[in-house]
């Protein structure tokens, strides 16, 4: 009785391989279309960050962190980035590349994730449809989708970026959805009762009240993006993944370590700064 599974084999592996092959030969232009704006954005940000003199960068960082949070976070942020710079000029450059990738993922999160989250909050059906995709994006082991990503986008910085975006987008959608659904019904009802259209209610009531939850989504987005950066280095993304990956390959523990320290440092800075912005959200007035 043991081997019922030998009766039939569902060839999912073949389907997926064929599917990807089909996409590569027939729909490549779509993926090139996705690739182009992302590449422009990434290259532009990277270029800007690289030509900015480190001292100017640190001053701007200080001011931004102060505005977003407070002077303590500002000093902490500058200290962390200065430490990275003093550990090596090469490391600073990697950090700027990674920061550019993180910024792109935040931008995609904002322009794609927040609207998708809003649609999800308004339509149970829409959310039910995209939910499995969100689960997939977050839990499929990176190694599994790196291969099709490379096949569709060819190896390079954008392929790495795509992997980062896929992995980091879901929390923005989920938390935007959650934040908007959490706005009490009676408040939405009051807005409706005064003749507000659904869009007015969204802009004047729901988004402001959901803003701190949405900011948590952006925060998660950044954290996940940083976590994916090392993986992305495998398929040609530059940045802090490179020293980690090289250190691993050549068993240069020191090199891997400073790469790792930089990632963790950046994560802490970005976490505190976005948290500060979230605290400013009007919903916190409750």
């Amino acid at each position, binding site marked *: 009785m043991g081997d019922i599974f030998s009766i039939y084999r569902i060839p999912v592996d073949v389907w997926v391989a064929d599917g990807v092959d089909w996409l590569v030969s027939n729909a490549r232009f779509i993926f090139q279309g996705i690739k182009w704006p992302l590449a422009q954005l990434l290259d532009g940000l990277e270029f800007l960050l690289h030509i900015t003199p480190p001292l100017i960068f640190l001053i701007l960082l200080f001011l931004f962190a102060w505005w977003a949070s407070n002077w303590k976070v500002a000093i902490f942020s500058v200290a962390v980035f200065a430490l990275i710079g003093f550990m090596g000029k090469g490391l600073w450059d990697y950090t700027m590349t990674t920061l550019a990738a993180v910024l792109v993922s935040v931008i995609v999160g904002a322009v794609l994730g927040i609207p998708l989250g809003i649609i999800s909050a308004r339509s149970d059906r829409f959310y039910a449809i995209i939910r499995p995709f969100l689960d997939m994006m977050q839990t499929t082991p990176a190694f599994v989708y790196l291969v099709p990503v490379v096949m569709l986008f060819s190896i390079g910085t954008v392929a790495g970026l795509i992997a980062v975006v896929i992995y980091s987008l879901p929390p923005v959608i989920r938390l935007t959805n959650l934040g908007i659904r959490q706005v*009490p019904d*009676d*408040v939405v*009802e*009051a*807005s*409706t*009762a*005064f*003749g*507000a*259209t659904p869009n*007015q209610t969204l802009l*004047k*009531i729901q988004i*402001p*009240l959901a803003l701190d939850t949405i900011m948590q989504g952006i925060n998660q987005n950044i954290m996940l993006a940083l976590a994916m950066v090392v993986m992305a280095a495998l398929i040609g993304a530059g940045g802090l993944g490179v020293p980690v990956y090289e250190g691993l390959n050549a068993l240069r523990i020191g090199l891997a370590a400073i790469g790792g320290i930089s990632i963790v440092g950046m994560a802490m800075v970005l976490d505190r700064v976005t948290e500060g912005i979230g605290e400013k959200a*009007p*919903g916190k*007035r*409750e």
Partner: protein
Amino acid sequence: MPSIELEGVYKVFGDEPDKAVKLINEGADKDEVREKTGQVIGVQDISFEIKNNELFVIMGLSGSGKSTLLRCVNRLVEPTKGKITLRTDSEEYDVTTVDYETLRQIRETQISMVFQNFALFPHRTVRENVGFGLEIQGVGDKEKNRKSQELIEVVGLEGFGDSYPSQLSGGMQQRVGLARGLATGAEVLLMDEPFSALDPLIKVQMQVELLDLMEEMQRTVLFVTHDLDEALKLGHRITIMEAGKTVQKGTPEEIIVNPKTEYVANFVDNADPSDVLRAVTIAEKDFRVSEDNRVKINETTEVELSNGQEVEKGYLAGTPVSIEPLEGYDSPEKEVILYVSPDTPISEIMRARLNYTSTPVLVLKDQELVGFVTEQNLLHGLLEKGRG
């Protein structure tokens, strides 16, 4: 001049409303329907008309469907069945079938609402809350702020315009909700227990404010309350609801004098009837006119009538005295006989008896004798609430 008419309005919560409505029509009550179908009846077969400038009160115990009914009127709750008509100066709308944009405009300009649980916007200041309706109407900042400030003052919250709701007490929050509801200038007001969280002093102040508003501007108000004294004080007419149904509808006095069911009687028993009962209701109307056209009111008091029953002269212990209106009367040292119109609340007679006179008070309609109110009539009226 808006008026609202409800005809056979039903609201069933649940996904099989037709089943529930059918059962109701077969005579089932709310509990039976819930048992058999799992559907919850919000309101069933409600019909009434609220006239222009009328304050119509909905009363009932918790869960009797007051809020549901109120929400049907601006369709925050979608009625399952029935028709709701809003008539304004220029238009007549069937609220239950209008398209979305018309409904939105009705909500924006015609019908305003004060919520039972306040439902303030926590991220907006008091001023921004009060100005919300005007903001939706597209009123300019300057006018909006002026109007908001005016209403903030009306509800006695000057100085709190820049506070957030969370910084205010419950009663203050309720007044913000009130100001927000009044600010839009809508002529129809749906008020869901708008004074429930106020302390007695401010409550009276707000009640007076509402009555003034109704006198100054034409407003049509649908007012939900738990508080019978409030209902009696404010309501032109009152409807009493029980388990989604109307059990009685009438003027405050009709309800007090003639409660139709035990449920209503229970409500009414604890009410103070003195502002509601009218002189004519409790007066002794069964009097005999003697040969010489005199009516003996008690041992010492007599009045003389003209041929047309008009009161001509009064006598106290045989001495002629003048007959004067109670309203505005202010000279306790004179010996007089006082009279009131039939609609005068008995509380005014009681006050007069306390201050000016111990003789019975006449009830006159166009100078004709309708009856008179003695001490005994007063006590009987108070204790028996004018019944029997």
